[in-house]
């Protein structure tokens, strides 16, 4: 009996060793990263709301690599060295892309040879300016301005502005413990918009919250946000 088992085991082991070669691929090792920016300033969006696409040509079949933009407007992808095309799909994000000089379109050519940092310059419809938060008691107030960036034929109106508060750094209409809204019609001065809300009881208790301002632009699905700020109570 033993005589049979030993060669059998050896056979299985050697098969296992050999087959390792076939299904072990090299892992992606090159990092492409950066921010979506307007004049160097990152554009804040909602978590999981805005995507970029990387396409590598030269293969028989084309499959995209989805790259999600973080709430702070940053993106990163772990890929291989090579030549890629980076695309911001149309109607993604509260901005429009700028025509790339090289490709005469919104496609950006990216040639990777090692880690690469690249900020993508876009034109947002608006920018949230001078956001300030203040707390008195359990009322959180904010004051901010909105600067209209796109003024040509693509210009869009504001629909509603929101103030969101959450216990964690993810702050948007999905992740929030309280919010306040102001319709565009009620905005008097675009340079000084005020909103306030009552912070509900937090379970478990914590002596800080995260807050930011969201802007719904008419006809644009993805909201524009200000930077997340930690506010101590």
């Amino acid at each position: 009996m033993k005589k049979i088992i030993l060669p059998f085991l050896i056979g299985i082991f050697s098969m296992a060793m050999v087959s390792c070669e076939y299904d072990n691929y090299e892992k992606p090792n090159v990092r492409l990263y950066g921010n979506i920016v307007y004049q160097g300033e990152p554009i804040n969006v909602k978590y999981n709301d805005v995507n970029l696409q990387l396409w590598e040509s030269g293969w028989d079949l084309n499959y995209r690599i989805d790259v999600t933009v973080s709430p702070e407007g940053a993106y990163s992808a772990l890929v291989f060295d090579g030549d890629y095309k980076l695309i911001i799909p149309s109607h993604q994000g509260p901005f429009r892309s700028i025509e790339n000089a090289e490709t005469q379109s919104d496609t950006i050519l990216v040639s990777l040879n090692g880690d690469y940092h690249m900020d993508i310059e876009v034109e947002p419809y608006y920018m949230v300016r001078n956001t300030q938060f203040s707390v008195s008691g359990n009322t959180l107030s904010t004051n901010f301005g909105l600067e209209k960036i796109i003024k040509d034929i693509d210009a869009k109106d504001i629909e509603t502005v929101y103030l969101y508060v959450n216990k964690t750094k993810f702050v948007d209409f999905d992740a929030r413990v309280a919010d306040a809204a102001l319709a565009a019609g009620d905005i008097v001065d675009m340079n000084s918009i005020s909103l306030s809300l009552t912070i509900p009881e937090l379970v478990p208790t914590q002596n800080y919250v995260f807050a930011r301002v969201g802007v719904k632009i008419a006809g644009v699905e993805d909201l524009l946000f200000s930077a997340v700020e930690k506010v101590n109570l």
Partner: protein
Amino acid sequence: MKKIFYIAIIFTALGWGCDDESFLNKEPKNILLESQIWEDESTVLSIIADLYVRFPEYQTVTGWQEFTNFDEAFASSNGDYWRHKSSEYGYDWWRMWDYELIRHVNLFIEKCELADEVLLPSKPRFLAEARLLRAAYYFEMVKRMGGVPLILESMQYDFSGDPTYLQFPRAKEYEVYDFILSELVDIKGDLPDDVNIKSRATMALDLAMQSRVALYAGSIAKYGQNTPTVTLPGGEVGIPAQMADAYYQKALDAAEELLLDGTYSLYEKKEDLSDNFARLFQDKANNPEVIFVKDYLQSEDGAISNPWTLVNQPWSGAEDLEGGRLNPSLNLVQSFEKLDNTYETFQTVDDAGNFIFYDNPSDIFAGRDARLEGTVMIPGSKFKGKDLDIWAGFILPDGTKVSGTYFGDKKTLPGKDVEEQVVGYDGPIDSREYSAQSGFYVRKHMDEATGSGQRGLKSSTWWVRYRLAEVYLNAAEAAFELGNSAKAATHMNVVRHRAGFTIPLVASDINFDRIFNERRVELAFEGHQLWDMKRWRIAHEIWNGITQELTNDPGKADAVQTRVFGLWPYKYYDPAGSENNGKYVFVEKLPAEVTTAHRFRLGNYYSEINDGIINSNPLIVKNPNQN
């Protein structure tokens, strides 16, 4: 000598074998040849039956879960709570790109056309059926994907290494709708006009389908203007606004042709209007309303029986160890009007904030649209002659609640020394699957026959795809959109009269909200909701991802419905002599498993065409607003 003899035998044997030409031309005994098929009615019938079985469906009785994705119902089943915990619908949801099905129906049409009409006398009917099915398949695709390539004949690859001649671009969205409508007009005369044919195509189905298809196209043309980014420059998605009226007119004409014909009528056989409404989906004998169904048969063969009653039966009277999965939401229940044609939320507390007490749990639902109790099992009602036991526990004067964690759980109430039942045998208990976690069970499509709730038998109830009430509502909507509110009111009143409304609506009552709500309550759990919300372009507004309380304005088309709510009955416990002891009070409740608000994004209006499809056919353009 012997050797020679053997050799001779072998040669003779071989000679015989080879001699016969037909040896290699024998008729196979295990498959049918084309020529044999197309000269026999019953064989052709079995092929067309296969095409009927493959009729694409989204929400149907074999998939109760799909009804819980939006706001009509809560999913009371451990494996399906995620439907209330995930925010966004994937861009690939509702995708359909089934050109195998299209090829098979095209092959059927091509071969049937060559058949000999003497041997196959029903040839025109078979052809008309196949063309209707092809139109229906394309309708399913266009409402999910927008314009798709219109492939009307079977394609053959020539193995030349270059398949580009087989690649076709997407048709414009309206071209697909126009194709469907022209096919339906074309074949109508070849279909039988027989009210007793329910599971095959009839002239009535043709007209009903025309009215639905044209109505969809018309509303996409009209309401598509509200979502300008949900279009493609080539017209593959989006229909020009100026085409709206023509489509609405077609929808109205087709619907009225069927309504004025008079062969079909609304089902009105039972005196109790709620029972009547529920029976409409079960009564297979001389049902004058039902136009087209998928039929089922109570059987040990799971493939042909209808599981709806088994999976949704009330737990307290269940015939097997499951049930109670689909719990209609309060969102839906409060959409049923009061009999004076007004909307009202349920009154649980008075102006001072004190509970309102009800002697019977069903009292709070009294005086409403009869369709409510025909669609939903409310607390205090019966199923299969058995009382339901829906109550969430006792509520004490200080507001404390005493409840249990299991069906019919027992506890000792304060001031007592014996244990007693503190929660109904149907729940509601949070996170307890099969309990009525919204406070309601579903009644529509439920079979009252014995055994229909047993795993080994299930139900014979059919799945109604087209019925006359929808045609009335199609006519009403088309008339309203064409500016004829008086006619819209007339058509709506027929349906509302059957539901127990005695005050007819007049032209000035008709507005979009009325049209919206009438479809919502009449056609709940019949697989219309998603397509209606899409074509009216309000899906992204009512499921906007924003966490909001339940609307206090039922009947409003654009009210936010991102989460499903429930209404829980409690027994009031105040033995110290209060006259309200033992009476029922109600609490509006967000089921504990509902944690996230649904979000329908603009990219959900037309499902994603994946990279694989585009790789094999680069002429295909993508749908808008997706990543």
